[in-house]
């Protein structure tokens, strides 16, 4: 103990403490972070082949099987349709970089043409939902009020009231929907990527889907109004409480310190 006391004032002590704190934080994070969280990173995977099947054999077949029949590492793609390919590849979720609880959104690897070729190839494996036409997901054509009701019934339990995203079990999550291209929102509902359940047209009609997109457009884009001011992330009472405990009470305590402090004296005693 004596030795420790003596060294506490060493100039490097603060640095050592800082390093310990960082290591502890990192360790804690490693312990709490879900296993195998993939890091988004621009992959240099360069694909030279242009035709869908060739692209597929190079980029996808390892996990999904040479005929799209699926392996232990990836589900079957027979019947998933072009919409699923477009969603997964055009948002960068596929190809998967490393196994983890969930494939995160990443920079897109393929060009638009290549994605179209891949989608055409997978669509040929079995009938499945096609890539929606633009008018199907036009937010202007939907009714945001009906969409809001449907959103709260089907979506908000995972994605939060306005689609800020939310946590699922064991490190899986429902992603943030802010400013996501309506096409991908539509395709996600249609195909049910990863943990998300599907909402086929028999369950959620195309008009229903368009209404949901209209709601998201009304409340969760960069240009959507937030009349009350700063949104604090849209997470509800937790972020509001944090704000009250930091800025709110902080400003008032600063005022209290000013009121309680002695006024500067003419000469220092």
């Amino acid at each position, binding site marked *: 103990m004596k030795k420790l006391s003596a060294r506490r004032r060493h100039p490097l002590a603060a640095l050592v403490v800082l390093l310990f704190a960082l290591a502890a934080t990192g360790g804690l994070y490693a312990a*709490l972070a879900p296993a195998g969280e993939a890091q988004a990173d621009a992959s240099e995977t360069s694909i030279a082949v242009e035709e869908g099947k060739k692209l597929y054999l190079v980029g996808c077949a390892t996990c999904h099987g040479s005929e799209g029949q699926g392996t232990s590492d990836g589900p079957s793609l027979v019947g998933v349709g072009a919409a699923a390919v477009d969603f997964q590849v055009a948002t960068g979720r596929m190809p998967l970089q490393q196994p983890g609880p969930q494939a995160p959104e990443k920079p897109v690897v393929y060009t638009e043409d290549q994605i179209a070729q891949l989608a055409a190839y997978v669509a040929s494996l079995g009938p499945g939902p096609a890539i929606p036409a633009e008018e199907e997901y036009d937010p202007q054509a939907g009714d945001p009020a*009906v969409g809001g009701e449907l959103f709260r019934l089907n979506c908000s339990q995972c994605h939060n009231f*306005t689609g800020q995203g939310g946590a699922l079990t064991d*490190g899986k999550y429902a992603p943030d929907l802010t400013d996501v291209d309506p096409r991908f929102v539509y395709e996600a509902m249609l195909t049910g990527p990863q943990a998300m359940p599907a909402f086929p047209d028999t369950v959620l009609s195309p008009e229903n889907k368009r209404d949901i997109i209209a709601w998201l457009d009304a409340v969760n884009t960069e240009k959507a109004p*937030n*009349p009350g001011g700063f949104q604090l992330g849209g997470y509800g009472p937790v972020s*509001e409480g944090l*704000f009250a405990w930091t800025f709110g009470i902080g400003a008032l*305590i600063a005022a209290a310190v000013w*009121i309680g402090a002695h006024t500067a004296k003419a000469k220092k005693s």
Partner: protein
Amino acid sequence: MSTATDERTTARRGKAPAGERLADWADGRLGVYGAAKYGMRKVFPDHWSFLLGEIALFSFIIVLLTGVYLTLFFVPSMAQVEYHGSYVPMQGQLMSEAYASTLDISFDVRGGLLVRQIHHWGALIFVVAIFIHMMRVFFTGAFRKPREINWLFGFTLFILALFTGLTGYSLPDDLLSGTGIRFMEGAILATPVVGTWIQMLLFGGEFPGHDIIPRFFVIHVLLLPGLLLALVVAHLILIVFHKHTHYAGPGKTNTNVVGMPFFPVYMAKAGGFTFIVFGVITLIAGTVTINPVWTIGPYRPETVSTNAQPDWYLGFSEGLVRMMPGWEIVLFGDYTLNLGLLIPLGVFPAMLVVLMLYPFFESWVTKDTREHHIAQRPRNVPTRTAFGMAWLSAYFVALVAGGNDVWAINFNLSINAITWFCRIGFFVLPVLVFFLTRRICLGLQRRDRDKVLHGRETGIIKRLPHGEFIEVHEPLPPAERYKLTAHEQPRPLSLPPAVDENGVERKVGPLEKLRARLSRGYYGEQAQIPKATAEEYREITSGHGHH
């Protein structure tokens, strides 16, 4: 300036000035001169930490004022209506009148949104201020005799504030409110034996029914604010009666209070602070959204949103529930005990009651029956400080658990891992924090002792003739020395010898033994560093002028 003029006019007309005549009139009926003689020049000590309670008081006032305004527009009814107000993304939706009127306040009443946001921000800050004010009182021992009752009043205010907040949160009937009410319903149903009856009576039938919001409205705007107001007045009367505590310092003793007179200095300072609190909360309300009910949507029992939390002050009870494993037992094959709710709902009040009754526990341990008016420095009472910090750490873990989904999504963590971390942390962390805090307190006491004996480090390095470098220490002025040595260091209770002077065995009850042990925990050698004595000081200062 004006007084001089007044005097002149008085002299001219031979009549007292109007103000004085009014005061005379009032005195004849209310005795204002007597009251003013008692109160006008009352001394209030200057310290920022004594203003924390004022933040609570002033935010309470602004919440009352804005609340009255909101009742002019709010319709506490659960009747379903179709919305046709000016917020487009809700057009034609079925919703309760309570929710619709909240949308109207936000979008159709000019300034209504501002008042709503002031009301809600004010409420959050009100409870924050109560909380840190309570911590100040706790850690400085300002709850000791004669202030134990006022501590209880304050604590009751805290609990009433929680429930006022809870009922207010429920009123707009948005998806979050409704989820909160559903939680309450579940909690009531979990109550053994009488749960279903209480639920039916409170809700006027099955959940959600049509009565709960009107009933909560009355509780929120009449019953609880009435109680709060009455207790706030009692709290303030006792403060005036006891006179404020102050920190040890030159001329500040247990038999006086040193500060500035209420009139005019504290009237200006407290009055000014009222407006500052109002102003800061209004500025926040004008720039930061709180509870945007229009995006949260109207409540329907089959819908829900993730990130469903209560306001922060109930976050720790929420966390206690989230940490709980799913235990449920069926008694005699017929009766269900939902322990997944009952245990956390028992721990929640227990944690509060432990803190609420702490002053009585401490006075029992210390057998101290004297009046105390000097606020202590937390380091000088390491065991109490450590206990308080341990309590806070348990509270904090529960608070973290209450937001587990928000942390999980924002920091890419697994919600299950966070929950497990909190489950373990809730038991382990307070123990670690207890011992760590005590050690830190002792370290600070040691530093105080060094400062008294050896003076302040000046940062000036001097080279002695033989080449040694030393830092010049400047002796503390007498006022500082006094401040750092003014606290008392009681010795622990000692049990009387096992046999008395006549050789007869003395009976010592187990409670008495426990008290002696606890007392050692508070005042034993490991719990305080002996402060510098005059002899030590003289020896060091007389021997070698400097060192």
